[in-house]
């Protein structure tokens, strides 16, 4: 179905258009276009046409314009013909068809207005307000958008009938895992109600008025970064938005002309608009501009109109639950009780058990639960999860054990870091006040494990130990299992297995991208290991993770297999023919867009550098993470550049064809610290010395090749002795 066809049903009789709404939209368009023009020409007067412009931390220039018309705007003067073209597009006849074009024009106008705000440094944003969201933020949430952990995107603007009602809507959306963009006073309402909003909660308070364009800037970059759709393919980008970005707009509070006009822009992208205002027929467009004054019905109706079906189950716990809370930090002052983290003994263990040794659904708490301990307590903790399933394998224990981390963090007021006997858990005062107990911790694990892995897990039982003696006893058993698992993992190498696994999860967003996951190469998102992929295949045999029987290698060193090539060709929609798994330089693996880190060659040093999403600064290849990511996303092979999961750096199969870790000449300090311990071990294994990590430059040494070369030379970095990269 073409984009225009989807609107056909809306206006049954072209002679009977919802004129009142359309007039409002038209008026708003006139206001927005002229306001943009006034700001633009004043800015040109003040700065000159040659003034450089752009948003921070993006490789996509002004994303709305990049996306829709392909102009890579970097100079102020370039906006004049663009804005004029879009002014010209505004026709006065009041029809829905014209209204969508007005909407498109208003998207441009808002982009121009916001660009000038950034140029002038008007109203710099402070936390939690975000303004423009940089590429790293877009990429960070890529994986959750593609696996539908984030089932949709809600743009909420205006102001709810009261703050409590605003909270209720947002809690509801957060509980469902939505990505949320907020604009105008609904933000203050949520702040008033202490609703957790901000970058950490995937609920972005953008700002006011035209700043809602930053939701559009976010969405359009998905098509550019993940979809691999070239800049300027307007219809393909619209189609991508409609198909892949399951967004809708909630307009709360009194309408005004400019908002209605901007909402025509949302409709132009394929997103319906719902409002809490009571509107007559001449103020509505069926399926597209909808009045629903009943707050209880607003969100369900939005989901229905946008075609979002939720599979999530309701959890029997007294706190909110969803990916929105994954980034939530619980500071010491907010902690009611904590466990582990070196302060007390703690462990967590998932173990496979036989059908007779388990009572499905049971949670046993050994020792007094947290309602009986005073605030500020530090308790020992043992989390033992017993799983029985006909398709369960011991190999999956680690996979599921890692899930404890995600599931726990999805709970509002529950914080979990690290793993195994290093785990560290905090429960907030807030959560406790709402009645959260460790019993609920067990219940949420059972519910989520069964929900996400129904094909493997038949029965789950959880034992929560809060008693020192029980924990001391349990940890001994746990450590035995960890050791056995480590031994098994060591034996799991690319050579030792029969099958690799594909991962096409990201194809919902990056249609030509193919990840091949091997025991020694984690997916570039960092979230899918070979065991994860294997387990996922068990759950959904026709799902995104398919076994690729390895067969004989064509090239052992570079890591090319016929089987992988065959799979790649089909899975990439016939766009890619060959792939090497062990090199960066020759037909390397593609990147979808949600990579944790990127490596890129630095020819001057005959080596390569790695930068991460977290590092926003400049790097020796002359590009920031955002710019680099813009060059190698979207399912393309880009020799010399590759997105990777961070832990791949520690793999024995880290680009062996290019010389392995000895090639690394630069990493951000933060990454160094993150991998230090294991990296030192790897360096010893490779025979390049425990101090190799200190021979690698970082941003404190320099951010250009010239700056770091002397450092590398002085420290005797091995890169100079390796074969030439190019």
């Amino acid at each position, binding site marked *: 179905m073409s984009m225009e066809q989807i609107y056909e049903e809306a206006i049954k009789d072209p002679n009977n258009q919802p004129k009142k709404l359309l007039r409002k939209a038209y*008026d708003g368009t*006139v*206001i927005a276009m002229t306001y943009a023009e006034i700001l633009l020409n004043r800015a040109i007067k003040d700065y000159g046409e040659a003034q450089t412009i752009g948003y921070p931390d993006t490789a996509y220039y002004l994303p709305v314009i990049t996306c829709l018309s392909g102009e890579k705007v970097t100079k102020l003067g370039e906006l004049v013909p663009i804005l004029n073209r879009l002014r010209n597009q505004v026709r006065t006849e009041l029809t829905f068809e014209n209204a969508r074009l007005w909407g498109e024009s208003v998207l441009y106008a808002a982009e121009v207005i916001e660009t000038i705000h950034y140029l002038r440094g008007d109203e710099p944003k*402070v936390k939690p307000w975000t303004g423009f969201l940089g590429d790293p933020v877009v990429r960070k949430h890529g994986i959750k958008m593609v696996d539908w952990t984030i089932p949709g995107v809600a743009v909420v603007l205006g102001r709810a*009938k009261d703050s409590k009602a605003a909270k209720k809507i947002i809690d509801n959306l957060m509980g469902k895992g939505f990505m949320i963009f907020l604009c105008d006073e609904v933000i*203050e309402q949520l702040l008033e109600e202490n609703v957790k909003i901000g970058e950490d909660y995937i609920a972005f308070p953008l700002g006011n008025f035209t700043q809602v364009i930053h939701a559009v800037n976010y969405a359009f970059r998905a098509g550019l970064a993940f979809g691999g759709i070239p800049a300027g393919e307007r219809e393909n980008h619209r189609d991508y938005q409609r198909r892949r970005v399951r967004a809708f707009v909630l307009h709360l*509070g*009194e309408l005004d002309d400019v908002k209605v006009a901007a909402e025509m822009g949302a409709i132009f992208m394929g997103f319906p608009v719902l409002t809490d205002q009571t509107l007559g027929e001449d103020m509505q467009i069926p399926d597209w501009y909808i009045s629903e004054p009943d707050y209880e019905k607003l969100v369900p109706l939005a989901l229905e109109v946008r075609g979002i079906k939720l599979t999530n189950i309701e959890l029997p716990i007294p706190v909110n639950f969803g990916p929105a809370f994954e980034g939530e930090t619980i500071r010491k002052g907010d902690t009611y009780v904590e466990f582990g983290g070196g302060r007390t003994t703690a462990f967590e263990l998932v173990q496979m058990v036989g059908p007779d040794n388990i009572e499905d659904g049971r949670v046993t708490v050994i020792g007094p639960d947290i309602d009986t301990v005073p605030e500020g307590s530090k308790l020992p903790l043992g989390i033992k999860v017993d799983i029985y399933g006909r398709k369960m394998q011991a190999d999956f224990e680690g996979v599921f054990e890692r899930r404890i981390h995600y599931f726990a963090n999805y709970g509002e007021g529950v914080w979990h870091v690290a793993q195994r006997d290093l785990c560290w858990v905090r429960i907030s005062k807030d959560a406790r006040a709402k009645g959260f107990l460790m019993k609920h911790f067990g219940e949420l694990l059972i519910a989520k494990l069964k929900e996400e892995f129904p094909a493997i897990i038949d029965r789950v039982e959880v034992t929560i130990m809060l008693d020192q003696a029980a924990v001391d006893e349990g940890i001994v058993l746990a450590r035995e299992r960890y050791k056995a698992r480590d031994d098994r993992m060591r034996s799991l190498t690319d050579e030792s297995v029969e099958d690799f696994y594909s991962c096409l999860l990201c194809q919902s967003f990056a249609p030509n991208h193919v990840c091949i996951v091997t025991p020694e190469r984690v997916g570039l998102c960092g979230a899918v290991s070979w065991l994860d992929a294997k387990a996922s295949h068990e759950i959904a045999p026709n799902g995104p993770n398919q076994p690729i029987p390895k067969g004989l290698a064509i090239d052992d060193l570079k890591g090319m297999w016929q089987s992988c090539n065959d799979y790649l060709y089909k899975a990439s929609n016939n766009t890619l023919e060959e792939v090497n798994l062990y090199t960066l330089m020759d037909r390397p693996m593609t990147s979808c867009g949600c990579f944790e880190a990127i490596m890129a060659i630095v020819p001057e040093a005959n080596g390569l550098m790695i930068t991460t999403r977290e590092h926003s600064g400049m790097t020796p290849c002359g590009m920031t993470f955002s710019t680099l990511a813009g060059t190698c996303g979207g399912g393309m092979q880009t020799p010399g550049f590759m997105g990777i999961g961070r832990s791949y750096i520690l793999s024995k199969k880290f680009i062996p064809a290019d010389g392995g870790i000895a090639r690394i000449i630069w990493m951000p300090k933060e990454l160094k610290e993150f991998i230090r311990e294991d990296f030192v071990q790897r360096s010893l294994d490779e025979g390049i010395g425990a101090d190799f990590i200190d021979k690698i430059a970082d941003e404190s040494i320099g951010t250009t090749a010239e700056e770091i070369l002397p450092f590398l030379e002085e420290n005797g970095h091995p890169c100079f002795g390796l074969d030439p990269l190019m």
Partner: protein
Amino acid sequence: MPRYRDLTHTARPSDAPRVVDPKNPVRTSDPGALQMLKMLEGKNIETVFDRVVAQQPQCTFGYKGVCCRICIAGPCRVKKEDGPGSRGICGASAYTIVSRNLVRLIAGGAASHSEHARHVLHTAHALVEGHAPDYEIKSTAKLHKLAQRLGISTLDREDKEILKDVVELGYADFGRYQDRPLAFLDSFMTQGRRNKFQHTNVMPKAIDGTVTELIAQTAMGVDNDPVNIIFGGIKTALADLAGEYVGTTLSDVLFGIPEPIVSEANLGVIDPKMVNIAVHGHNPVLSEMVVAAARKMKAEAQKVGAEGINVVGICCTGNELLMREGVYLATSSASQEMAIMTGALDAMVVDIQCIYPSVQTAAECFHTKIITTEGIMKTPGAQHLAFKPETAMEDAQKLVTIAIEAYKQRDPNKISIPNERHKLVAGFSIEALTDIFSKVCPERPISVLTDAILSGQIKGVALMAGCNNLKRSQDESHIAILKELVKNDVFVIATGCSAGAFAKFGLMSPLAVEAYAGEGLKSFLKMLENANPQLTTGLPLVFHVGSCVDNSRASDLAVAMADELGVDIPKVPFVASAPEAMHEKAVAIGTWCVTLGLPTHVGSLPPVEGSDLVYGITTQIAHDVFGGNFIFEVDPLIGAQKLLNALEYRTWKLNIHKKTAEKNETPIAQGW
């Protein structure tokens, strides 16, 4: 999006009638004027109130702003929603016609205020040049403060030298062609406003040029983009504010900074035993001299049998003299004819603005002499005495002489003076207010006000301003809104005929505090009084800050509060209201109030309803762009509710922003 705490309020006005009781000629609530009307019963004397009734029903095309008379192919009216009838002959649609008509009102307002300012400026110039022997620099302190604001050096310089530079800069502000901001605007703004005006291209570069440009912009066949036209209007409104700044600041330099002063108001101040001279209009340049001349000429008055000379004020000339000299305020705009009808007014000396042409007709029934004094303001049948700064005292004495002569012609049978008069305290320049606050907190005087708002003791600040508009009973809306505001603990400052109304009703008196102020406001005023034992006058319920050019003082207060709070004006709990707006000047003032970032209530609808776009910009989008918006509401009680709600809304938001900033350890958010 509505900008009220309570979301049952919207940007739309209520259904209240636009003209209340259109056939009733008793259209005043002023007790003095009511008594006067009673006394006039059966005398067949025409007043403004009769003419309001005669004008009903008024033209709805004009009322909504969709009547275009800019070229003589017209008049054209927007008659239909679609088709040829929805546009003028040239094709101008409703939004073009409405916006053009609207901004031409602003041009008129700006021209008026700047005319007033120009006159003060010329006088100061004549003083510097040595041609105005009757004037002096009365406030060196103000001159120095002003010069420093304007970036003019004061170190080791003669006052006249400094004033010369100030005057030159003032002249430059009237006629500049280079793209540089108006000094008399730019120097008084917050950094945030300065940036906003620059970035949105509404910072004027010259007062005269801006008015001219707007007329050219809105001529037939030029600008028809309503947004561009409105931005032109906004620029002109800011030029109006600059004119007001010139007027206020230089008047303070020449005639002194107002200080708390006791006086009386309403028609009862006209004294049958005295030669009564009313000074009416707006400009203190002449009227200050009349006051001085009257003081000198007591003996002449006594010669003709009077006890002395009683100068009384009407309208904003009255306010100017009340603020600085404690001259009695006889009455305000809509009841100006009533002063003549007392039969005891010997002369009415007028300058410019808000002077009803009918005063001469009314005077013909009595012995009263009307004397016009300005080249641009003459009345057939009235005497004209061209007033010149060079011969100011001489001119003033001639005027007083005319009054004394007229006194002889008084007909005792025609004398009927209402016995309505009220004590009041006025004279609250920002300097005076700051001085009062500084007795509580010498380091940060304005924090006394802002802290009281943040603590909830008072709800915020309201400027009440503007004219009389007889679509409702005179002064009814001023009084009703004031009472609601003070009852709900709002700190109210007033100018123009709004201040006049309060003075006439006895609400500008310390006595009114007990009767009308809410507990919070009462305790706040009490606290100020206790800290200021030197103020023997006590503090009034509402603070008179001056004439309508002195709305610039309100701008000063808003700026000072913003700076104190570390935010820009749109976040300051400060509202403005013109409950009975009438003059073009009110449209200009209202527009700059909105542009400064204030919610601005207008109790009489300007001609904007013919275009949803223009209505939407003024009431909604203006807030998104500038942080202020118009509140159009004719029902005073609903208007007051909206003002209170707008204050609560601001405090609510400000507190959330403050809390959020503390929690995240960031500076306070700048958005509004």
